[in-house]
């Protein structure tokens, strides 16, 4: 992606925005970029706990905006990965404290003065002011969507709003796919979601228990042992950096009955 300021958004809550932000951000840093992950969900901050950095938060985004500290001091450096920083949201304030123009200036400062290669913005759910503020400095977006009707519908709304704000470099992250259900015909397939939303995917992530395990312990999946979702998130980061990484087929399973079904054109 050309975009250096990227908003991670979805419309609907609970589809994996924060997990995506934490892991893609960590992976990008792991691949050598200097990355800031920014939590814009003022009042409901979560990126700090998902990343396991909650105990090191001193200042937050609103402190910076209101001039109580300088930007550098609010950034929490992740000691596990070189070049990874978190800018936390305020937990005790409401969304009104965050002004889109001021926020845009902060993201500019990160990219132009603080030497960051990439800023990943974790947007709050919804389509109101919080989302619009999060999207204000963005040049591109990762639209996180689950293969499920309400999530796809909300994603469509969000894609329309991103385009209306002039944000053009937008990609889908299709999250929580259950290959077994897709094979049975009980879950929208990746191709269905792409066709309906008319946007290209940059990440295709299977449902994986290890996501919950990683948030339990506060260690991004991409830093942990080999898990299916962790691998897919790392590949997503590689694609963002412009590498050609083919999407592995999730539906391709070995086994006698699967082969029989394929031969007879079922499933």
């Amino acid at each position: 992606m050309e975009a250096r300021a990227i908003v991670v958004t979805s419309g609907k809550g609970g589809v994996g925005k924060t997990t995506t932000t934490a892991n893609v951000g960590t992976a990008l840093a792991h691949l050598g970029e200097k990355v800031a992950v920014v939590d814009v969900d003022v009042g409901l901050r979560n990126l700090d706990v998902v990343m396991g950095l909650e105990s090191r938060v001193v200042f937050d985004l609103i402190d910076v905006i209101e001039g109580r500290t300088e930007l550098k001091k609010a950034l929490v450096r992740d000691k596990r990965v070189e070049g990874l920083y978190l800018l936390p949201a305020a937990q005790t304030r409401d969304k009104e404290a965050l002004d889109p123009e001021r926020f845009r200036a902060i993201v500019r400062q990160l990219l132009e003065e603080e030497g960051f290669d990439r800023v990943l913005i974790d947007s709050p759910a919804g389509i109101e002011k919080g989302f619009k503020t999060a999207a204000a400095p963005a040049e591109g977006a990762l639209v996180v969507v689950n293969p499920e009707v309400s999530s796809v519908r909300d994603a469509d709304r969000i894609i329309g709003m991103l385009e209306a704000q002039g944000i053009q470099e937008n990609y889908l992250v299709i999250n929580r796919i259950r290959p077994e259900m897709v094979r049975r015909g009980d879950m929208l397939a990746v191709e269905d979601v792409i066709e309906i939303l008319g946007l290209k995917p940059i990440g295709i992530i299977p449902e994986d228990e290890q996501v919950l395990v990683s948030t339990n312990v506060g260690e991004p999946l991409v830093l942990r042992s080999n898990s299916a979702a962790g691998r897919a998130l790392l590949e997503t980061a590689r694609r963002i950096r412009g590498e050609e990484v083919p999407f592995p087929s999730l539906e391709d399973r070995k086994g006698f009955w699967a082969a029989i079904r394929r031969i007879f054109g079922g499933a």
Partner: protein
Amino acid sequence: MWFWRRRKSKEKARDRLKLVLAYDRAKLPPGKLEGLKAELLEVLRRYFPADERGVEVRLEERGDDVVLIAEVPVRP
């Protein structure tokens, strides 16, 4: 009884989504089409005898466009 489940639930999800997105994108709630249908019928009746029965007005996706389809049976 596998044959009961021939129509996969994902097919249904896809069809429902396409329809609801057609209305969302046109910013037109399905209920409003009823009003349009009534007024359309009024105008059509000035030109030929149109019957309320069998009239159907709906939105459909055609590639990138959303089109309004009105079907009005013309009585012989």
